[in-house]
């Protein structure tokens, strides 16, 4: 099973990288960009019987830093 983990900064945590990307977009002439926040996408290939609890634990113990980040798990059907 393929699993996608989306890791993003918690609301309220300043994102210097997002701000720089925002400036760069404006520099390229793109109008109307209100805010940019940079996150991380992690793709896992795991055994089909992997439990939701195990995936949660992977996120909390390593893949996300719960002090500054949130995560969202998306399970994809096996191709």
């Amino acid at each position: 099973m393929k699993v996608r983990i989306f890791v993003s900064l918690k609301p309220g945590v300043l994102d210097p990288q997002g701000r720089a990307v925002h400036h760069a977009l404006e520099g390229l002439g793109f109008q109307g960009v209100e805010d940019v926040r940079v996150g991380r996408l992690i793709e896992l290939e795991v055994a089909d019987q992997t439990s939701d609890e195990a995936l949660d634990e992977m996120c909390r113990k390593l893949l996300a830093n719960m002090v500054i980040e949130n995560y969202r798990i998306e399970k994809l059907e096996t191709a």
Partner: protein
Amino acid sequence: MRAAVVTFPGSNCDRDMAVALEAVTGQAAIRVWHGDADLPERLDFIALPGGFSYGDYLRCGSMAARSPVMRAVVAAAERGVPVLGVCNGFQILTESGLLPGALMRNAQLTFTCRTAPLTVENSQTLFTSGYEAGETIRLPVAHHDGNYFADEATLDRLEGEGRVAFRYADAVNGSQRSIAGVLNEAGNVLGMMPHPERAIEPAHGGSDGRRLFEAALKELAGA
């Protein structure tokens, strides 16, 4: 003083740390490898050096914090053994949960390498008793991810409990409340972005860092 310096793959200040410890204590520091499951016995002091452990993969310090030796470091810290984490060592301490907060990309996004003035906030600790509270000292900083973040409640608690050891005296990296170094609740774990081990002798451009190691040596001898 039996001191150990832990080397992770990608550490690059481990030798500097060992040389500094030996210069101050007169005893060679014991070198420990990240894959070691156990630390040497009867350690008086553990140092986690700066560098780019595991190439800063995932998040700075995140992989090192889960390496075998860190289980032993956490256990030693919980027994009260003094632990000093500098730069990447500070990032490893926050990632391992020994210290609160997280170190994010510098607000200005650039790697910052210079000597920075710091204000000593608390001089009543194992590591800082050689300084005066409110004193300005100068230590080198060299990092890309030193922007200290914690939520407001945690920051208030750190300040209220005297756990902010050092603050930047000018803008370095956008850290919340200009925090440059924090202590754990028991006061035996210090994490800091500036490098005391790079300021041991006048030839380094300053020797304010030496006083940190001297203080620890003196406090441990008196303990």
